[in-house]
């Protein structure tokens, strides 16, 4: 029997353990809330993690990757704006390795070659997560620029119509004086 098949009945436990480990990357007062509150609107972070881990685990075990990008985005987008460094933001992917060994350590130890395959898929996922992280951070900069443009819409429209524009702006945009960066 292949490792994949043997793991199948354990997937729920693995996923539960993985989620637990991800929640534990948050400060302790928050991780309780993340796991306790099940309402998807009251606890969007917990919900996203629960939902996306199912897809990601499935892709690691089966090798199917149709929905991985979406699922990665669901978690990484959130972590990209939270108090994490880049490495910590994507480290949740590696926690899957720990979850698997925690739950199915003995099985895995017996089939090194099959484990290597899973291990590589998880590494691949982590690299992909890093790309998503970078995209999210870049997007933050582009949406900031788009915002400035919207906040000066009347000036932009006037310019388009070839009309003169007087210098004022949504607060902050015309900011002459502000602390050194």
């Amino acid at each position, binding site marked *: 029997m292949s490792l994949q098949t043997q793991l199948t009945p354990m997937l729920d436990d693995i996923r539960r353990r993985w989620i637990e480990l991800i929640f534990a990357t948050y400060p302790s007062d928050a991780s309780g809330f993340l796991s306790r509150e099940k309402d998807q609107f009251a606890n969007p972070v917990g919900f996203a993690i629960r939902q996306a881990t199912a897809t990601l685990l499935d892709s690691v075990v089966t090798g199917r990757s149709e929905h991985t990008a979406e699922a990665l985005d669901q978690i990484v987008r959130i972590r990209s704006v939270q108090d994490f460094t880049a490495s910590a933001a994507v480290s949740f992917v590696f926690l899957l390795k*720990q979850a698997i060994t925690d739950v199915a350590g003995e099985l895995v130890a017996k089939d090194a070659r099959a484990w290597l395959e899973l291990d590589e898929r998880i590494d691949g996922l982590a690299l992909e997560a890093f790309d998503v992280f970078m995209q999210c951070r870049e997007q933050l900069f582009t949406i900031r620029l788009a915002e400035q443009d*919207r906040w000066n819409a009347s000036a932009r429209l006037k310019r388009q119509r070839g009309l003169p524009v007087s210098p004022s702006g949504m607060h902050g945009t015309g900011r002459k004086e502000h*602390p050194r960066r």
Partner: protein
Amino acid sequence: MSKTPEELLQIHYHPPKHDWMDPSIDFEARRGTWSYPGGVKSLEYLGLPNPREWSPTDEDWKLPPNWQEIVHRGFKDLLTKYRSLRIFMDCCVRCGACADKCHFFIGSGDPKNMPVLRAELLRSVYRKDFTTAGKILGRAAGGRALTIDVIKEWFYYFYQCTECRRCSVFCPYGIDTAEITMAARELLNLLGININWIVEPVANCQRTGNHLGIQPHTFKDNVEFLCEELEDITGIHVDPPINKKGAEILFIMPSADYFADPGIYTFMGYMLLFKYLGLDYTLSAYASEGGNFGLFLSRDTAKRLNYKMYAEAKRLGVKWILGGECGHMWRVVNQYMDTMNGPADFLEVPRSPVTGTVFENAASTKMVHICEFTADLIHHGKLKLDPSRNDWARVTYHDACNPARAMGLLEEPRYLLKHAVNHFYEMPENTIREQTFCCGAGAGLGNDENIDMRMRGGLPRANAVKYVHEQHRVNLLTCICAIDRAVLPTLMDFWVPGVRVSGIHELIGNALVIDGENERTTNLRGEPLHGEGEVSDDV
């Protein structure tokens, strides 16, 4: 050397558990979650304390030598003036009902964004300095000494509260954390600690009458320019009076409505409506701001900015004031204006010249919200609306915190939408009405350097929008707040691409069938009425 995955796990597996009482913020590492300090010129202009060049990343914040005494005296002063503050300081039983209700906590997972802990930052100092037990027992009684690090922490976390009051909806004692934040900002302000995105608009507003610093000629220029755009689209010529003495009504809107996208389309909606009604009204180049960023700084600055609305109403000799789609403006008007600068005895109790309805709810402030005004028009069958002109839009509605929670304006906006659009979908119950989630950028936090914090705080709101976007293909998020219109498009770009943002009177303007108009082929944004965005079949 780079870290192995195992090492990464080691580091972040169990985050260090600090004692919450020990403050220390690494501002350098947390860029994106705090705002730049108030500029010297603005502080000087407003006569506020301790103008200087400084940055939160500096070790030395250049506080006055007797800063502790200043805070202590200021605190004492606030406690004497506001009995509510003393009660809020004393009566929290730490039941935790509010703890997970703050959008900043939900989105960040930072425990100090729990309202109860946010308040505790101030309360612990109160306990130490102002209660007998605290004076004697100190830390054992939950008291904490006022150090520079505490002040830095106050700056960080009290400028991570949007004063939205969602938490107070859940508190069995009605403790209003927004007022605790206001008190803390008031104290920080005594030391010259504040943020530029608040201080500069306040200074602008005091000088020119609006947050953007727009002078009368530019105001006039902008209004006329937008009216020309409006005429291009509708064929209707609108020439709104400015500073007209003796007009019946003074109309005051947030400045972003005549300046920024998408507020300018809401402005066009107002203009079209007033033209349709033949309303006797005037705009004012001085009362050219409904918003009041003074509220986010100190009670005194809130009062100063609010005063100009009354002063201008008096100068122009109008009977009453109609206010535009603005958020915190209505908190000031509804909850503070009367005691700050009112009652406005020189004005009359507002009465709609079209329907004769007397707005008893505004009997004292003499100021009516445009959604109430327009809902009353529709109720009396005074508007001809063709909602199919908004069929490009599949609409949901975001209750802005202040109109919803500080004013109870829940039904009118929905009533307007029901008549102006064909496709309307509510977001889930625990994210709307009194329980609405903040945009994450109110109370002066909508600046771009604070972008990470805005995205965190806005996540719960965006998450609910995403749900209706996926379930019902909603593509337009409506709101009645100028800050929302400024910041929600950015929030949508990040979390729910494909959803745009508009005010409600923009949609009223689209739907309004008005004599002598061109056949409408575009909406007020100049986009085809039956464009790509349209999805005709209902789900």
